[in-house]
């Protein structure tokens, strides 16, 4: 049942002697089957003992003397498993069981894989999660263990290194199952069942279970002198013996040095680990979509100067408000791909936005659909579509698109001189016009002074009257259209006025579309 082989026998024997619990023995035998860890400690113990008693004394490498030495520990184990069996037949073991009825605390996992893998602890954890009122369909378990477990693990590994190597040519420390993983394998089915959620490695909802063991905190200290460069005091950390630092030091220290400074196998602890308060965490969720702005009096973000609101409303607030109420969010991040002026309409597929927050409720597709409808119904100044969940990496794609994509505009132009249709034909013939734009005066107070070269890919003009025409342009991202039209004191060159040999000004501007196919369209 345990899929242990002949070669595992000396390892099992040695570890049980050293004071390892049944699940830790499985770990060091590289047992990778989840179900093996889900049986009770007592059952696994029984199976291990049964496995050992199958030993043919002729098969083991050791002499019969070894066999003799085995018997007393075996007997002890048998006794303990019988006692544990007695306990098991009664109520499920309470956390405060009588000390003499319980097997000794494991020297490697300090009890994590012994006393915290059963239903009552799982129930305790799940109570905390339920009390928080979170909504989720899936979760992932995060386990944090005291740093000294790595030290003890290392010690046990050295203890059986010879036997492990003999078992297989390529067994390395990394092949040994980690305490964290064994713990998750043992309990996640129970947690999932109790909370009615699936366990997903990429779930946005994280349940953290932690343990401490003050009694053995000193186990790490010798590493500070042996590998002093691994331990740098950090002001915001309680102890300099962080898990990372300890792991690093264990990688560096030689076997000889380690064995000189630390008992092998590790000393038996008197107490087991204490569990920390279970905590829950939702990671950030990202939504992206497209929006249209139909008003010429709506800023992108709230326009507030010196605490005074300069203009009512904003694209950000109109989109965020319904999203915030659907998905219980306290704080949020709103970013958009283009920063259009207040008085510019964004039509077509022109504008992208992204919205992220720490959400503690899970999505259902319908929530997104209904949010789209709510936003669109709330105001005729904006409209959203293609709302969808995206990844954090998507933010980068959006910003990248901002720098590279071409945009199409339409503008209402006024000219000082009287124009004819012929004057406008000239404009239609201009292709790939390179212009140099100094930072426009209207934004110079908050942007660095620089010259930007941009390309006007194509233009076409439609005559309206002697002093007005509609101009359509396709330009490189980041082009200041208004300045291209009026020239900004000659600081954008060439400019439309100059090309037409008159003064020109822009009366209205609309962004018509943007050449980007992300995020993918979502059918209504």
């Amino acid at each position, binding site marked *: 049942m345990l899929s242990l082989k002949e070669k595992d026998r000396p390892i099992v024997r040695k570890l049980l002697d050293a004071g390892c619990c049944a699940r830790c023995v499985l770990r060091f035998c590289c047992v990778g089957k989840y179900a093996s860890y889900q049986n009770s400690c007592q059952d696994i113990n029984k199976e291990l003992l049964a496995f050992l008693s199958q030993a043919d004394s002729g098969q083991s490498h050791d002499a019969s003397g070894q066999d003799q030495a085995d018997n007393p520990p075996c007997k002890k184990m048998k006794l303990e498993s019988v006692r544990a069996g007695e306990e098991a037949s009664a109520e499920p073991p309470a956390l405060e069981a009588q000390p003499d009825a319980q097997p000794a605390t494991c020297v490697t996992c300090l009890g994590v894989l012994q006393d915290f893998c059963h239903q009552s602890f799982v129930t305790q954890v799940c109570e905390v999660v339920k009390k928080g009122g979170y909504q989720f369909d899936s979760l992932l378990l995060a386990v944090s263990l005291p740093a000294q477990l790595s030290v003890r693990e290392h010690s046990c590994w050295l203890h059986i290194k010879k036997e492990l190597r003999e078992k297989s040519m390529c067994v390395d420390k990394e092949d040994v199952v980690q305490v964290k993983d064994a713990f998750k394998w043992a309990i996640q089915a129970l947690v999932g069942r109790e909370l009615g959620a699936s366990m997903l490695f990429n779930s946005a909802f994280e349940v953290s279970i932690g343990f401490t063991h003050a009694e053995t905190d000193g186990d790490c200290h010798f590493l500070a002198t042996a590998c002093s460069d691994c331990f740098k005091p950090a002001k915001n950390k309680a102890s300099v013996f962080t898990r990372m630092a300890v792991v690093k030091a264990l990688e560096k220290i030689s076997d000889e040095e380690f064995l000189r400074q630390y008992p092998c196998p590790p000393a038996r602890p008197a107490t087991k680990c204490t569990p920390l308060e279970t905590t829950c965490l939702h990671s950030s969720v990202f939504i992206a979509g497209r929006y249209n702005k139909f008003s010429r009096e709506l800023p992108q973000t709230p326009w507030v100067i010196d605490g005074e609101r300069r203009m009512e409303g904003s694209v950000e607030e109109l989109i965020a408000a319904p999203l915030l109420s659907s998905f219980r969010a306290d704080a949020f991040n709103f970013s958009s791909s283009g920063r259009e002026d207040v008085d510019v309409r964004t039509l077509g597929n022109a504008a992208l936005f992204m919205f992220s927050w720490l959400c503690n409720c899970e999505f259902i597709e319908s929530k997104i659909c209904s949010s789209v409808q709510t936003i669109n119904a709330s105001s005729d100044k904006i409209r959203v579509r293609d709302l969808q969940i995206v990844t954090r990496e998507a933010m980068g794609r959006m910003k990248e698109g901002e720098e590279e994509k071409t945009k199409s505009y339409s503008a209402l132009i006024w000219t000082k001189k009287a124009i004819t249709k012929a004057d406008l034909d000239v404009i239609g013939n201009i292709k790939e016009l390179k212009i140099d734009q100094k930072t426009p*005066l*209207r934004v*110079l*107070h908050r942007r*660095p*002074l620089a010259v930007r070269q941009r390309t006007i890919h194509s233009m076409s003009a439609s005559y309206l009257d002697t002093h007005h025409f509609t101009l359509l342009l396709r330009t490189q991202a980041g082009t200041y259209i208004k300045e291209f039209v009026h020239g900004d*004191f*000659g600081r954008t060159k060439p400019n439309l006025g100059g090309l037409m040999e008159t003064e020109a000004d822009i009366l209205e501007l609309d962004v018509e579309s943007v050449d980007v196919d992300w995020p993918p369209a979502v059918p209504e």
Partner: protein
Amino acid sequence: MKKYMKGKSCEDHCVLQHSNRICVITLAETHPVLRKGSKIKSINYRISDGCSRLNNKVSGKSKRGGQFLTEFAPLCRITCTDNVEYTIFSCIRGRLLEVNEDIIMSPDLLLEKPSTEGYIAVILPKLEESKRVTNSLLTREQYEEVVSKRTTQQPQPC
């Protein structure tokens, strides 16, 4: 952009101030350079041995490195074809952001389009001094009053 005028013994400058407090220094239409009818021989931004406005370099959003000017700091000297030299002044306190180098090569720009492409310089006053700058200048109405008084008092042009 709103116009505010500053005169210095008839050598009127016009300061265009944007709502974001950025100021563009230009010549007012009553400035002798524009009134005279003679052409410009040269425009020199090198106002002293140690200081040339052409060397002005700003970097970053806060425009570090820009030369800080007081109201009477010279921006440039314009020499007309009649060899009369005029000094153009900052008129306001602030950091010099840029000077118009186009007018060096094409002084006609200054004569033909003094309020747009023929501008002299762009200056950024300190945020806390911005209002004071505005108040130190004349409004269009006040300016026109001054100018009209000038012509009645002194018949000959300045």
